[in-house]
């Protein structure tokens, strides 16, 4: 009888021990999770460097995202203007017109074209402030890897990009669900045309081996 009772107590204790195991790390009931699927449209500005020269532009972006709890995985693409100004020496050093020996007379040359971007990324919902159950102000951290393709008149450049950043969005949790967000990312790109990561044709300029730029965008998502 005693042995039977002890055996049942041991089995009961083992069952209770397994049910007392802590919950998974992402099961946080206080957060309104990312939607399972979301489509976003927006505008995005960028600033990078090509061959050491500043380049910037603005354009449209489209994104499709899959959400799971506090994580969101997205694929995005953008089409933007691209342009930079370069000073080009105009022949030998010249005297006259106030020029001094050793001065290099130069003129500005503008390069304009298009930038096509595509990439994969993820977001993590870091903080969420909800004054009521209808909407909230959220902070998320984001990163993505992708490819840039510049199509300029005398330069065709393809290079990878890596971005790390953060975003703030104002999201509704009841129908119609939507979010308006501001996204800021630091952009890392190789600039050296001799790098194995960079494919360049045309007037490829020498410059720093890598550059730090930025992406700034605003999106509306459903």
């Amino acid at each position: 009888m005693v042995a039977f009772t002890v055996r049942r107590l041991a089995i009961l204790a083992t069952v209770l021990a397994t049910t007392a195991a802590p919950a998974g790390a992402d099961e946080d009931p206080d957060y309104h999770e990312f939607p399972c699927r979301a489509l976003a449209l927006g505008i995005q500005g960028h600033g990078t460097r090509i061959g050491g020269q500043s380049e910037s532009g603005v354009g449209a972006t489209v994104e499709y995202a899959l959400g799971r709890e506090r994580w969101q995985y997205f694929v995005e693409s953008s089409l933007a203007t691209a342009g930079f100004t370069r000073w080009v020496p105009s022949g030998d050093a010249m005297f006259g017109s106030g020029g001094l020996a050793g001065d290099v007379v130069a003129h500005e040359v503008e390069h304009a074209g298009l930038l096509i971007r595509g990439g994969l990324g993820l977001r993590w919902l870091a903080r969420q402030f909800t004054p009521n159950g209808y909407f909230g102000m959220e902070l998320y951290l984001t990163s993505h890897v992708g490819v840039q393709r510049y199509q300029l008149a005398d330069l065709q450049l393809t290079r990878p990009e890596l971005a790390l950043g953060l975003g703030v969005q104002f999201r509704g949790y009841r129908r119609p669900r939507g979010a308006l967000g501001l996204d800021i990312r630091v952009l890392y790109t190789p600039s050296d045309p001799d790098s194995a990561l960079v494919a360049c044709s045309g007037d490829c300029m020498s410059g720093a081996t890598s550059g730090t730029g930025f992406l700034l965008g605003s999106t509306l998502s459903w």
Partner: protein
Amino acid sequence: MVKHLSLALVALASLASLGDAGPVTPPFDERDDDLAVTEADDDSPAFNMLGFQFASGELPIGSAHTLALSLGLTIEHPVWPKLRVVGEYDALWLVHRPTRDADATSMVLPPDRHTSGHRAGLAVRRELFGRGNSSARSFLDGELGASLALATDNFAGPQLVPAVFTGLRAGFDFYSPDDDSASRTLEVAMLLRAIAVSSGVGLALGVGLHWGN
């Protein structure tokens, strides 16, 4: 029988160790007053803050006029009533403004100098003034700290830039009445800093948004 008793004791010991998975967090309403939303006369609420800030200013690095732009994350942790420790990480861009040749008829090829990098900082922040209620609160903080930046300049190469800073930070805290809100506080603030580097003192003006847990 001894064998069964030993098995039961092992099972009970396993239950005790798994049950002690960590401190039990009481419901918000039952927490100590130190963690609760403050009344108008209480000290500032003691909870961690996570957010970001964007700052712009001028620093005397290299040339006389260097525009410094920074974007970064900030973590704040209370250590004493009204005193908090702040950790910052910024992405940094320095835009140098070279002086043009005075002779406008001579087109001298201007150098394109640019700098970017990373900056980490540590500061202490203390509330100097605060007033509000259970919904919102205004505040004025003073801060003192130091930072170290690793900047890559296309002329000078990588360089370390240590700095000390002091400043004021003013803004509003908004408190959520929703008990289910993951962050009970949203803070909007503006900051003004004086930053001292080896070659002089500069100023920075910024805005930030922070969420409290």
